[in-house]
Every structure is written in C-alpha cells, then in structure tokens.
C-alpha cells in the first residue's frame, strides 16, 4: 500500500489499488528492460551508413581485393581473416588503407589499417569477432583515390563475444 502511494497511484477500493500497483510495476519493468535490451544486430542500413560516413559518395568498385575467411566458424569469437589487394605497392601506385566491415555486428566497423609502398605487398591478416552468420566486406583505398572491395559470407555456429 505504502509503495503504491509512493508511486503516485491512489484508489478507493483495495482491488483497484492492487491493479494500478501492478500496472505501475509493469511499466517500471518494461522501462527497465528497455534500458538493457539492445538491438540484436546492426542492419545492412547501418553498414551502408558506415560506408557513406567513411567514403562519402565515392563509388566502391568490386574487384582487386581478395577477402579470405573460413566459410564456417565453429566459434565466432575468433575468425581468421586475410585481406589481399592487387597492387604493385610502388611509390606511384599503392594501397593507402584497408577497411573491414561486418554487416550484422552491433558495430559494423571491425578495423582499419594504413599502408604504403614501404609494405611491399598489400596483405594484412588478423582475427575478428562475428556475432552471427553474415557477410564481411573489405574496402581498399588506392593511392589514385579509387575504392575497391570484396565481400564474403560466413556461417557462425556459436559466439560469446556479445557483439
């Protein structure tokens, strides 16, 4: 009773009182769950937004980039990934950066690396987290300003990374 009053509910009969108390509690619980529940995954729109934010309206071509990852990952927390770009890596023509995106993680960005002619070859490998089965996209920025990309699908069995 005291708690109901504290919540600002008032009623004449104890039955009505009880009902409004329940409603108030229900509303509280709903509010609390809204605070902790996050969207299950990033939508492809979020990926599009991340691409736009990074590269603006510059066209992203398909090709010149090879994205290697397992087709099936038993554990999505540790997925080996290798990105190679077809470039001579000379002072005149080289890869400036490589960007990796996940379509359905909470955050679409995975990592970005800066490269130059001093690397000799445009190949980078790392290990990444995949929340669920989805498509990965790698985009390379070349020294002439052009953008090239590749995408690859991966099936994830379990993931404990919380992403």
């Amino acid at each position, binding site marked *: 009773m005291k708690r109901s009053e504290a919540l600002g509910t008032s009623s004449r009969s104890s039955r009505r009182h009880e009902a409004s108390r329940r409603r108030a509690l229900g509303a509280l619980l709903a509010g609390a769950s809204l605070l902790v529940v996050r969207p299950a995954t990033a939508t492809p729109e979020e990926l599009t937004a991340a691409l736009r934010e990074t590269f603006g309206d510059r066209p992203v071509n398909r090709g010149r980039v090879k994205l290697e990852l397992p087709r099936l990952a038993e554990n999505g927390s540790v997925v080996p990934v290798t990105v190679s770009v077809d470039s001579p890596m000379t002072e005149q023509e080289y890869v400036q950066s490589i960007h990796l995106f996940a379509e359905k993680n909470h955050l679409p960005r995975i990592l970005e690396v800066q490269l130059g002619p001093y690397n000799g070859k445009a190949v980078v490998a790392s*290990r990444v987290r995949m929340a669920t089965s989805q498509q990965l996209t790698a985009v390379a920025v070349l020294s002439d300003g052009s953008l090239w990309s590749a995408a690859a699908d991966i099936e994830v069995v379990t993931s404990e990374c919380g992403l």
Partner: protein
Amino acid sequence: MSRMGAGRVRMPASAKRGEVIEIRTLVQHPMESGFRLDNTGKEIPRHIVESFECTYNGREIFRAKLHPAVSTNPFFTFYAVAVESGELVFTWRDDQGGMATATSHLDVV
C-alpha cells in the same frame, strides 16, 4: 585495469635489401567489447586496444585502428620492405591509458 600484457613480434632477424619480410604481432589483451554482461547482469565496461602502430627507423610503416570486433589478444600479420638495418618499434595503446611496446632489430645485408 589499464595494464596491458606483453607484446610479441615474430619476424626474421636478417633479410636481403629489397626483400619483403613477414611480420607477425600479438598483444595480450581482453578486448572487452562493452556488450557483455557479468553474472549479476551488469554491463562489463569496454576495454579495448584502440591503436597499433609499427615504425621502422622512426618512419611509420603500419597503423591499425581497432574496434570491439577484433578478437581477444589482437593479432596482425603484415609485410615490410627491408631497406636498411635498424629497429622496428611496435606500440599498442588501449582506451584506459594502457600501452605496450616491443622492439625488433633487422639486419639488412
């Protein structure tokens, strides 16, 4: 909390001038994504390595920006052209002020 494990580097000790060498690096770090809950349902705060860089005789030859989707104990393989003998310095920085460094010497013959 801001302490970081040791950084480890595997690369050849020597190379011919102009040769492209492979460099493999790893740092011990939880890469806590900030999206996980502990046993009591409380959010575990984000704690990730945000940047990694490599310099070769003072010149930057590799830089990475990491997001929470990089796995625990961040690992990178990349390449470099052996141009002259000298030091390669590797630096990892996390979002709580933690830092780790490693240095390797390369003999160019």
